[in-house]
């Protein structure tokens, strides 16, 4: 139940307030009279109405507040006293109501400023602003407009209240609106002006306030009502207070987003540099040095690792490149590298260096991945050659050699020029093995060490190809070819004759050169692409006529690098 202010005031005087009640009781006793009072709704607040014969009405501002009943006319003095008490109480309550109204506004603006300071975009701020404005200003229509700093166009950010003219309003009134925004003033539009403006035909009352920040005006808020309203200066002031808050919030949001954008751009630039640098110096290399990022490495950083080094080289590159101009040459090398890189990465390796007609890859996880990658590279190459054949292009052959061992990765150079470098005898050996693969005519050539370190050697098939002593080295190396790199038909041939080949090698090392030659001849005849068989056939045949030294162990001395 929500009784009126007048009713409450009367109740307060006659029922609740002990002070006024005492005063009235004293007056009654002094005057020797009694009275009763019931309010406009018939609630008895004092005395017993049935007891009295006379009645007078208590009025205030043409409002009937209640009936005062009495017998003795002297009791009318009490009515006068009641009037005075009522007026005081009523004024107190009225002021109290007004103050509470103002307090609500303060509280709302307080809440608004907190709410919009959390928003970081103009649209949310605009929406909250309009929503809050409707809470304290009687309005049916609202528009939140901003002036685009670049295009000078007036843009609607938020609105409430529909009208058939809303879509065209800004367009039609843009000149006026822009001018109002530039002026940065606030006003209550006189009702006559609202009525005479066809664009405002759906409204009877309009007021507006600017979105002002320091000396700039970002836009404006227009509020209107479809019924006639007497907008007061106080309401306009309230709207101005609200728009000031919004404008400040929007400005902060702009600055915030600008800052955010700049940070993002910077981050993006750094990320791009990072991505690019990662392509030039492999991240695996950086990580091996115990660093997360290339910016952290410094001259002299180094790390020793046990790795498998793989060299891959395009055979007969010189022949191919002779037929191409430098640009096409480059494209040809790229076409090759593009196909091989992903295979290396997929098997846990990374390309340490491109070497013009080939590359060096490192496999920190060891030879299993290195050999798998090598087999897959040869497969991929056969597919590539099939594509090339369709375009009448020469097939590309690649020799692959690998070796296991310790390796030092480090940052070398000087303070102005740094480079990732590796220093290792393993690298030299791997490069020589790759060179030998051409000499032996194998697709993939590896050392005993490399083969022994395979975690799952059963996945591959090998042929033992004897021992070599590399130039400048003391220790001979046992060599194996992995026949999985060969084309299927050749691999099948090598597999089928594996036992015979092994027999040939045994005879060779037992210095039974004639028998060995016959054996290798037999194999070679079956498939003339079996180049290792041909090589040992030639070696054996050559040794038949040679005088063999006592300490001959079949180690091939490599005299070239």
């Amino acid at each position, binding site marked *: 139940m929500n009784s009126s202010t007048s009713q409450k005031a009367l109740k307060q005087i006659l029922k609740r307030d002990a002070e006024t009640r005492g005063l009235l009781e004293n007056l009654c006793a002094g005057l020797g009279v009694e009275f009763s009072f019931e309010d406009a709704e018939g609630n008895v607040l004092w005395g017993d109405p049935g007891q009295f014969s006379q009645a007078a009405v208590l009025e205030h501002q043409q409002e009937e507040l209640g009936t005062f009943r009495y017998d003795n006319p002297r009791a009318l003095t009490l009515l006068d006293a009641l009037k005075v008490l009522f007026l005081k109480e009523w004024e107190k309550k009225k002021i109290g109501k007004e103050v509470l109204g103002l307090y609500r506004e303060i*509280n709302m603006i307080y809440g608004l400023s907190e709410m919009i300071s959390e928003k970081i975009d103009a649209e949310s701020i605009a929406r909250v602003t309009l929503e809050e404005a409707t809470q304290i200003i009687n309005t049916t229509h609202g528009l939140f407009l901003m002036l685009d700093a670049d295009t000078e166009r007036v843009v609607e950010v938020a609105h409430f209240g529909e009208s058939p003219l809303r879509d065209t309003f800004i367009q039609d009134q843009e000149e006026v609106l822009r001018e109002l925004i530039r002026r940065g003033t606030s006003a209550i539009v006189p009702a006559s002006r609202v009525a005479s403006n066809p664009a405002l035909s759906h409204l009877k009352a309009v007021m507006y306030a600017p979105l002002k920040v320091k000396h700039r005006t970002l836009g404006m808020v227009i509020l209107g009502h479809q019924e006639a309203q007497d907008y007061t200066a106080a309401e306009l002031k309230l709207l101005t207070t609200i728009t000031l808050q919004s404008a400040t919030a929007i400005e902060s949001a702009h600055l915030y987003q600008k800052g955010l954008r700049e940070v993002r751009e910077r981050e993006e630039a750094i990320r791009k540099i990072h991505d690019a640098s990662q392509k030039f110096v492999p991240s695996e290399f950086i990580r091996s040095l115990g660093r997360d990022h290339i910016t952290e490495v410094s001259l002299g950083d180094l790390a020793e690792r046990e790795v498998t080094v793989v060299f891959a080289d395009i055979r007969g590159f010189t022949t191919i490149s002779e037929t191409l101009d430098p640009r096409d040459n480059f494209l040809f090398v790229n076409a090759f590298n593009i196909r091989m890189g992903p295979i290396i990465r997929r098997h846990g390796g990374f390309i340490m260096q491109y070497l013009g007609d080939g590359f060096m890859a490192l496999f920190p996880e060891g030879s299993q991945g290195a050999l798998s990658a090598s087999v897959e590279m040869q497969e991929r190459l056969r597919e590539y050659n099939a594509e090339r054949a369709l375009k009448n292009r020469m097939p590309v052959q690649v020799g692959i050699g690998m070796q296991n061992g310790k390796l030092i990765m480090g940052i070398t150079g000087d303070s102005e020029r740094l480079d990732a470098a590796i220093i290792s005898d393993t690298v030299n050996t791997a490069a020589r093995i790759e060179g030998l693969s051409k000499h032996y005519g194998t697709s993939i050539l590896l050392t005993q060490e490399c083969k022994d370190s395979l975690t799952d050697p059963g996945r591959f098939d090998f042929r033992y190809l004897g021992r070599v002593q590399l130039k400048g080295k003391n220790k001979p190396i046992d060599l194996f070819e992995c026949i999985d790199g060969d084309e299927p038909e050749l691999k099948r041939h090598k597999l089928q004759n594996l036992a015979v080949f092994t027999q040939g090698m045994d005879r060779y090392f037992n210095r039974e050169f004639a028998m060995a030659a016959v054996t290798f001849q037999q194999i070679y005849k079956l498939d003339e692409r079996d180049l290792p068989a041909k090589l040992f056939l030639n070696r054996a045949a050559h040794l038949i006529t040679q005088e063999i030294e006592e300490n001959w162990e079949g180690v091939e001395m490599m005299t070239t690098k």
Partner: protein
Amino acid sequence: MNKKLLIVDDEAHIRMLIEQTLEDLEDEGVELLFADNGEKALSIIQEERPDLVFLDVMMPKMNGMEVCQRVKKELKLTEVYIILLTAKGQEVDRQKGLDMGADRYMTKPFDPDEMFAIAEEILKK
């Protein structure tokens, strides 16, 4: 609803604001009581045993914290529901107030509608 509600604030205009905010409760039979300092508040609480007290923290003579502590800890009047009122920016007092036994906490400027709703809810219990 035969309940009593005590409003304690040294500033007359705040008392009036709270009175205005809560005056509709009178229609439901709630008696509004007032005190303009802590000492007065304490004696009214002891005599009248109000159901709910809106208690300002910053007051001369005896501040709200102390009143709260006396009521809850010394007099053990735990059934008197106390809502502490503090100005915005004094939120640091919050935990202290709750430690003193306050049941709830409101900041000024308060939201009149929220205050009315809370008072109504507590008095209806």
